[in-house]
């Protein structure tokens, strides 16, 4: 049997000796990568199962001790570093389906038009309907279809960034797949997760899906224009959210009427300002360091190194 993939366990014969006559084949891994590799075996027939008589199976233990999300986290950390270096404020918008994320995004993009450069990555299992809604505002949007996947991961975001790089000092909205469970576990490299909860969903959501509300920095309570028509206690939802995440910030708004949107735009401006300030600081630190090194080089030229040393 092939060591890497388990292929060839049926219909291949091997009688224990090594032989240069082998076969090469390929197969597709679960990550979609095509693996191609050779078997240095002599195949005698197709009716006997694959055996390794000369190599008795001795079980041994291999210690791995690695985080299962390590690969995602390493892509996320690359993304985060890139965002920080380029002064991009990346926000991961999460919610259940139908909370009004895309409508809110469209309203936000229209409000920022002509003031701040913005890019959008849209995640959905199927269709590019959301990206088309975004593009209708004149903003560039990359649609990522996750297929069977219930969340975006950091590698998908990295691929989307390769397709359309955000301009330095800009806003990047990453609209995740509508799902209040899985996106909580996958860091994309964003500055913050923003959870959108609409008043038609019920004020107990933070208790039912605590991981998401714990992971988010800001909760936007959307569709507040519908409050007179639904049983939704705004104070209770805020209490519930702060039970799982005492530091969570909250803004109430309506993407349809525009009420409260100004407060959201202020929040964005504040966060964006902080990102730009950090970038300016790191550029200033780099410039200072360059100046120090230049001064050291200068000093070495001024005082030749062939002076006698005390030993």
């Amino acid at each position, binding site marked *: 049997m092939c*060591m*890497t993939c388990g292929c060839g366990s049926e219909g291949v014969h091997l009688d224990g000796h090594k032989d240069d006559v082998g076969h090469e084949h390929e197969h597709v891994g679960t990550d979609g990568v095509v693996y191609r590799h050779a078997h240095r075996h002599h195949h005698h027939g197709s009716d006997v199962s694959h055996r390794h008589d000369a190599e008795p199976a001795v079980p041994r233990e291999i210690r791995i001790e690695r985080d299962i999300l390590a690969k995602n986290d390493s892509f996320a950390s690359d993304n985060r570093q890139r965002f920080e270096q380029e002064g991009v404020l990346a926000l991961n918008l999460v919610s259940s389906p139908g909370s009004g994320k895309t409508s809110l995004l469209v309203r936000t993009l229209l409000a920022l038009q002509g003031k701040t450069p913005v890019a959008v990555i849209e995640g959905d299992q199927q269709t590019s309907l959301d990206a088309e809604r975004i593009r209708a505002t004149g903003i560039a949007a990359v649609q990522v279809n996750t297929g069977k996947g219930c969340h975006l991961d950091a590698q998908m975001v990295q691929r989307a960034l390769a397709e359309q790089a955000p301009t330095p000092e800009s806003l990047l909205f990453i609209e995740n797949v509508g799902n209040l469970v899985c996106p909580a576990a996958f860091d994309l490299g964003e500055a913050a997760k923003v959870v959108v909860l609409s008043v038609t969903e019920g004020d107990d959501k933070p208790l039912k899906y605590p991981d998401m509300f714990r992971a988010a920095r800001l909760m936007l309570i959307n569709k507040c224009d519908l409050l007179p028509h639904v049983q939704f206690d705004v104070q209770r939802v805020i209490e519930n959210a702060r039970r799982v995440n005492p530091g969570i910030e909250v803004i109430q708004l309506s993407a349809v009427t525009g009420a409260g949107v100004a407060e959201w735009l202020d929040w964005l401006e504040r966060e964006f300002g902080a990102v730009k300030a950090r970038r300016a600081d790191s550029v200033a630190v780099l410039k200072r360091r360059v100046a120090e090194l230049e001064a050291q080089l200068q000093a070495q030229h001024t005082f030749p190194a062939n002076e006698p040393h005390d030993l």
Partner: protein
Amino acid sequence: MHELALAESVLQMVDEAARANGFRRVRKIVLEIGQLAAVDPAAMRFCFDAVVRETVADGAVLEIEEIPGRGWCVHCAAVVPMDDFVAACPQCGSFGVQSRSGRELRLKTLEVE
């Protein structure tokens, strides 16, 4: 729900280990899953069985060590058991217990041949 992605991730790590260590079959996979890691062990087993079919880990036993959640209360500074992120501190009754363990999601060891 994301257990499928996690199971695929475990399989990728097993594949990498197979290339590095040259084993041809995995007999046992030991995972460490914290109680607060938002992963359902039963769902993990189901997805694992689905993704390992016809791979080096086909037929491997999946052993899951569950790590109990423990937290630190920011109000009374007690270290307390923590079943979820919603419960109040059992010592002083206030909310805001911060997790100290129970969020683990690790591939620990492989038994191979």
